[in-house]
C-alpha cells in the first residue's frame, strides 16, 4: 500500500544507470526487430552507391571546369545526401509514428511511464544507428568516388587536409537528420504530417531561402540544415556562409530544437 511495499513487489529499486540501460535495450530491441528497417537501409545503401558511381563517372569523363579546381568531395556525397538521408529520416520518423498508429505507444508508455526517458532513448538509439550507418556509407561513397576519379588523375586522398573531417561530418549529418526525424515524429504523431515536417526541416527550408531576394537568401539560408551540412561536408567552405564550427552548431540545433519541442509536449498529452 505504501512505498516500501512497492519496492518489495519488484526488486530493489534499480540505479539510474540500470534504468537507462533498460530503456535503451527496449528501444534497441524494437528497432532491430523490424525487418523492413533492414530492407530500407540495404536498398538505400545500394542505390546511394550506384548513384555515387554514376556521378563519379560523369565527373571524371567531363572536361575539367575552366574556372578554378573542382571540388572532388561534392560529387562524393551527391547521392548520399538524398538517397541515404531521406530514407533514414523517414525510418526515424516512423520510430514514433508507427507506434502511435498501431497503439504500441500505450504498451511502451505503460512499460516505461517516464516519457522523456522514452524520447531520449529513441533519439539515442536511432541517432547511434544512423551515425554508424552514415559513417560506413560516407567512407564507402568517398572511397568509391576517389577510386573512380583517381583513374582520371584528379582524385583526392583521405589524408588531404579537411578530407577526413568532411567524410566524418557526412555521418554526423545523417545522425542529426535522424534525431530531428525522431523529434518530428514525437511532436506530430501522424506519419504523413511528421514526414512532411522532417523533409521541410532537412530540405525544403533551404530551397525556400533560395528564392528570397539577395541579401536574405544568404542571411537566412546559412542557418538551414542542408547549407550547414554543406559547409561541413566540403574541403573548401564557402566564405559567405557560416564557418564549419558554427555550421556544426546549426546542424546540432535543428535536432535539438525538435527534441526540445517533443520533450515539452510528450508529457502533456494523453497517449
Amino acid at each position, binding site marked *: 500500500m505504501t512505498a516500501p511495499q512497492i519496492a518489495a513487489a519488484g526488486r530493489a529499486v534499480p540505479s539510474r544507470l540500470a534504468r537507462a540501460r533498460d530503456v535503451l535495450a527496449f528501444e534497441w530491441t524494437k528497432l532491430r526487430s523490424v525487418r523492413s528497417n*533492414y530492407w530500407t537501409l540495404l536498398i538505400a545503401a545500394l542505390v546511394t552507391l550506384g548513384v555515387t558511381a554514376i556521378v563519379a563517372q560523369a565527373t571524371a569523363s567531363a572536361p575539367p571546369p575552366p574556372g578554378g579546381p573542382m571540388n572532388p568531395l561534392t560529387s562524393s556525397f551527391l547521392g548520399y545526401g538524398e538517397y541515404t538521408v531521406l530514407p533514414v529520416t523517414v525510418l526515424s520518423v516512423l520510430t514514433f509514428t508507427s507506434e502511435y498508429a498501431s497503439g504500441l*505507444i500505450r504498451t511502451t508508455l505503460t512499460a516505461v511511464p517516464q516519457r522523456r526517458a522514452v524520447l531520449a532513448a529513441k533519439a539515442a538509439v536511432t541517432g547511434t544507428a544512423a551515425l554508424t550507418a552514415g559513417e560506413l556509407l560516407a567512407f564507402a561513397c568517398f572511397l568509391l568516388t576517389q577510386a573512380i576519379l583517381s*583513374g582520371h588523375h584528379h582524385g583526392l586522398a583521405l589524408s588531404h587536409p579537411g578530407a577526413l573531417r568532411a567524410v566524418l561530418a557526412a555521418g554526423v549529418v545523417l545522425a542529426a537528420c535522424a534525431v530531428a526525424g525522431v523529434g518530428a515524429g514525437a511532436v506530430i504523431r501522424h506519419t504523413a504530417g511528421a514526414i512532411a515536417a522532417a523533409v521541410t526541416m532537412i530540405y525544403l527550408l533551404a530551397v525556400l531561402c533560395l528564392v528570397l531576394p539577395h541579401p536574405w537568401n544568404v542571411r537566412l539560408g546559412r542557418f538551414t540544415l542542408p547549407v550547414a551540412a554543406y559547409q561541413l561536408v566540403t574541403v573548401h567552405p564557402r566564405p559567405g556562409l557560416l564557418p564549419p564550427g558554427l555550421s556544426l552548431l546549426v546542424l546540432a540545433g535543428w535536432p535539438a530544437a525538435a527534441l526540445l519541442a517533443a520533450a515539452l509536449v510528450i508529457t502533456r498529452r494523453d497517449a
Partner: protein
Amino acid sequence: MSPPPAVVIPVLAVAVAFAAWCLVDLARAGQVRYLPKWAWAVVICLSVPGGGLVYLIVGRAKPAAGVPPEAGVAEGAGMAAGGPLLAPPVPVSRVVIEVDQLTKRFGPVTAVDGLSFTVRPGHVTGFLGPNGAGKTTTMRVILGLDAPTSGRALVGGRRYQEIIRPLHVVGSLLDATAVHSGRTAWCHLLSVAHSNGIGRRRAVQVLEATGLAAVAGRRVGEFSLGMKQRLGIAAALLADPPVLIFDEPVNGLDAAGVRWLRQLFKAMAAEGRTVLVSSHLMSEIALTADHLIIIGRGGLLADTATGRFVSRTRQDVLVRSPRAGELAALLAARGAAVRPEGDDGLAVTGVAAPAIGDLAAGHGIAVHELVPRHGSLEQAYLDLTGESTDYRAMASAPEETAVP
C-alpha cells in the same frame, strides 16, 4: 594508385550486399556463438567480407532447446491443459488501487465524472458498465496514459508515473491489437521484458504458459485476435506483478482460452493479488469476479460483493391456481405482497414456495403451478445501468421478465 573503376564497383557492391545479408541474418538468428550479437555486427561491418565469413562459419548457432521460436509446446497446449499458473517465487505483496474523485473530460465530453472506488487485493474485481461508460478511460488514467482533469488514481499509494519498473507492480492489457505487425511475438515480448530489466528466461516461461511458444517466431501481423490476446496476457504476466489490470480480456479468445483466463484470475486473486477486469458483459464477469464495480456515464452505480448484488435482484414465487382470488386474500393475510399475473397467476413475495403450497393445501385450493423465481445477474445489471446507457438500441425496451 588504386584499381580501375570497372573492377572496384562490382566488387564493392558484392561486398556491401554480402555484409548487409550477414547483418540481416545476424538480426534474425536466435542465437550466436561466443560473442554478443552487437560484437558480431561490429566484426562484420569492420572487416567485410572476411568478418562476414568468420561469422557465418563460427558465429552461427542452432537455437538451443527451450528457446523460441523453434522449440516449445504445441499451440494452445498450455491454455487447454489449464497451463502452468506461474507460481510466484516469493510471497506476493498486497497492493491496493485507489481511484479518488476522478474526473476526465475530453473537450465537451465528460468521460469520467467524480468517480471513486478502491480495488482490494485477494479479489477478482469486475469492472462493469455499458459501452461508453468510462471503463477504459478510468483504466488509462490508472496506468498513467491519460492525465485526469481532476482527482487522482493511485496504485499502492503512488501515481503510476512515479513507479520505477512498473511492470513489476502492475501487469496490464488494454488493447491486444496495439502491437507492431512486423515484429515477431518473441521480439515484442523480449523488448517489453528488456524495458523492465526482465530476463530472457522469464519471457520464454510466459510464452509457454500462454501457449504461444510454437508461434513465437511468427510475425504478429499474422496472428488472430485470440493469439494477440494471449501475447498481451503474456506481456502482462512477464514480471509476475501483484496487480493485474485487464480491459475486455476475453475478446477473441476461444472457449479453452476463456476458461484458462478465468482460472488464472482466480488463482492470482487467491495468491493475494489485486485483479481488476473490465467487461461490458455481465454474464462473463459473473463467473469470475467476486466483487463488482459498476459504472454508468462516468459515475459509480454500484460497488459491492457479487453475492450481495445477486441478492438485490427480484425474487418471487409464481403461483397458478383456478381459485387465485381466494389464495391471494389468504396470502395477503399472511403478510405477503401479491401481484396478479395473467388470468390465474399470482406473483408472491414475502412467503416461500413451500409455505404457499402448504397454505393452499390447508384450504383445499388446487395449485397448478408453483415456481420460485429469481432475477438473473444480467437482469439486475441491466436494471441498474438501463437509465445510464448512452447508446441504447432503439427497439430494446427491456421486458420485466424474470428468468428462472
